[in-house]
């Protein structure tokens, strides 16, 4: 059981939860995630650890309402409520080193998992350039937090309502074309964004890492539901990743596997399958 200590609405349909999880807060490293189960009939879903406080024994989770479980969590859980199961920290920590100049790219709520990694890069003395993007200005999250850990922060919006108009990849491409020396690019966000970042850096040979958001069940390596093609090998994102060399990831296979339960995800489980949504 993990008690919710703070709940904030960061953007439309995006919530921040600070929860009590001392064992996880004690151990977690940037790049790791947790599996949660909200209550007895809930499924298990992965969420990245967006921040942690070892002394207070808390971790921060950022949740966007995209389906039954996330909607249930965001709309019915309030401060003081307990999340039934929280397992972690899971996954390999981000590889930390002094690389030189690191560009951290976050799309949508992908900015949240980028934050602890960018902070750690910054602390190690890397020059951190962050590019955070969203559809419009209301959907930009973690702006101040990212500012605090970046030497330079670029904001992009699809509609130009904040920062530069366009995609995160436009800004990244401009940087590469201008001949800026970049030692590492980290991308976290929707699959299409991570794929486009990989294609943008590929011709320049810039090392690029993506944090993959596969379907997961246990999160400990026992089922292979999260398997993904990386180079010539199948990897389990939950134990071998979630970060991989973006130039080796088979993004088409990732997109295809994410669609596996699309039909079932449309069903509203709490209605017991008797409502109209099932007939349609």
């Amino acid at each position, binding site marked *: 059981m993990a008690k919710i200590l703070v709940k904030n609405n960061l953007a439309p349909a995006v919530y921040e939860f600070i929860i009590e999880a001392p064992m996880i807060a004690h151990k977690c490293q940037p790049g790791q995630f947790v599996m949660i189960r909200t209550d007895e*009939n809930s499924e298990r879903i992965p969420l990245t650890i967006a921040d942690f406080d070892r002394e207070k024994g808390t971790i921060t989770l950022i949740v966007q309402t995209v389906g039954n479980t996330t909607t249930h969590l965001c709309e019915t859980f309030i401060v003081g409520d307990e999340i039934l199961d929280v397992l972690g920290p899971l996954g390999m920590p981000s590889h930390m080193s002094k690389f030189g100049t690191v560009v951290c790219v976050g799309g949508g709520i992908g900015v949240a998992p980028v934050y602890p990694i960018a902070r750690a890069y910054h602390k190690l003395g890397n020059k951190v350039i962050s590019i955070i993007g969203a559809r419009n200005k209301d959907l930009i999250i973690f702006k101040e937090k990212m500012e605090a850990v970046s030497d330079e922060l670029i904001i992009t919006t699809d509609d130009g309502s904040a920062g530069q108009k366009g995609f995160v990849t436009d800004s990244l491409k401009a940087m590469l074309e201008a001949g800026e020396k970049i030692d590492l690019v980290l991308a976290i966000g929707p699959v299409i964004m991570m794929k486009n970042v990989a294609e943008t850096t590929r011709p320049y040979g810039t090392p690029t890492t993506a944090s993959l958001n596969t379907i997961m069940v246990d999160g400990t390596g026992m089922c292979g539901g999260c398997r993904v093609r990386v180079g010539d090998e199948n990897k389990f994102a939950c134990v071998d990743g979630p970060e991989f060399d973006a130039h080796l990831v088979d993004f088409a296979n990732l997109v295809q596997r994410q669609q596996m339960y699309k039909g079932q995800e449309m069903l509203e489980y709490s209605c017991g399958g008797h409502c109209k949504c099932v007939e349609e």
Partner: protein
Amino acid sequence: MRGGMRNPMPEQPADIRNKNFEEVALGYDMATAIDEAQRCLNCPKPRCVEGCPVNVEIPAFIQAIAQSKLNEAITILKRKNSLPAVCGRVCPQENQCESKCVLGIKGESVAIGRLERFVADYAREQGIDITKTDIDSSKDKKIAIVGSGPSGLTAAGDLAKMGYDVTMYEALHAPGGVLMYGIPQFRLPKEIVKHEIDALKDLGVKIIPNAVIGRTFTIKELMDEEGFSAVYVGTGAGLPHFMHIDGENLNGVYSANEFLTRVNLMRAYQFPNVATPVYVGKNVAVVGAGNVAMDAARTAKRLGAEQVYIVYRRSEDEMPARKEEIGHAKEEGIELRLLNNPTRILGNDKGWVNGMECVKMELGEPDASGRRSPVEIKGSEYVLDVDMVVMAIGQGPNPLLKQTTPELETNKRGNIVANEEGATSIPGVFAGGDIVTGAATVISAMGAGKKAALAIDEYLSKH
């Protein structure tokens, strides 16, 4: 004639049970159990006990049933076995206790497993609780058990009875290991597993779910920071094997672990009343022929698959599953495709399975182990019309433990190296069950847990 034959087990009819998740075998009633118990000859040197990996005093508990002393029967059973309702259901008794029964020479052996199940079920239904009275004096030492499957549960129960302060860590949200996520409801109802685990909690065993070794904590931290004097590792064989053939990443291809975890642990068979979905095709191929394959095939059938195939590269004689499970599967309409091996999985343009290419096999000369190895018949490839594939070709040890405890000696397969008593290369760290032997049976894992509990007690008496 009656003297030579065992009492049959009542079962749900095959064409009814293959559409529900209720238990298949219904259990003996009192009169039948007493009648069956009276077949036991009460041998002075009972060989059945030797066949039991945890050495249950079999004639003694059966004599108690024969005399209608059921409280006594459960007390005798639980002295050696903390999980009799589980063992009575899932042990391969035909290879263990029952294989040694002298009645089996001329007729049928005593139905020891069915009687064990009867007593455990009777005790549960009547609320007979004998565990609390069984605890020794306190030993004032803390022992950590990593993994709450059959071997961990057994070690925890025995150590708690010896008076130790036992804490069990489990990565999943529910304890029980394969008993919860692997073996289906229709063979082992989950309420029964929960009941037997609750009896351990009554002995004082603490269970901490959502704690994964190698991530949430390491063995070293348990011993240096958390004050545990000894650690028992029973983390099992939970890493699924794939065949590494083309098409294994198509949608509709599952490991048996994932398919069964979704259905058993997450109760996806109740979707959409629970949130975890599971995909089930119209025509399903399950690759492999062990008990896990039988469970996956019978589960797919119950979820509504029209045609379910077991695809196996050897013949029926070599199938590792229990005969009883193979029989149940056949009765339920599962079709065996023996001497067949998948070569690739085919998909449509959306990335979903729409066929599996197989090659026919024949058995060649016996190899060094005496087993005839399957050889491909060249040019015999054909496409099996399936839209879902479950890989049930075995499991290995999870690599997380090794990654974070490199000083723990493992063999080239990744299994922990431990001696007969379960002692590993690290003093005070013991291991047993599938993590040591590779995927085996529930009862052999329990036997390992029992031996290790004794070895831990001996170790702690000296340290």
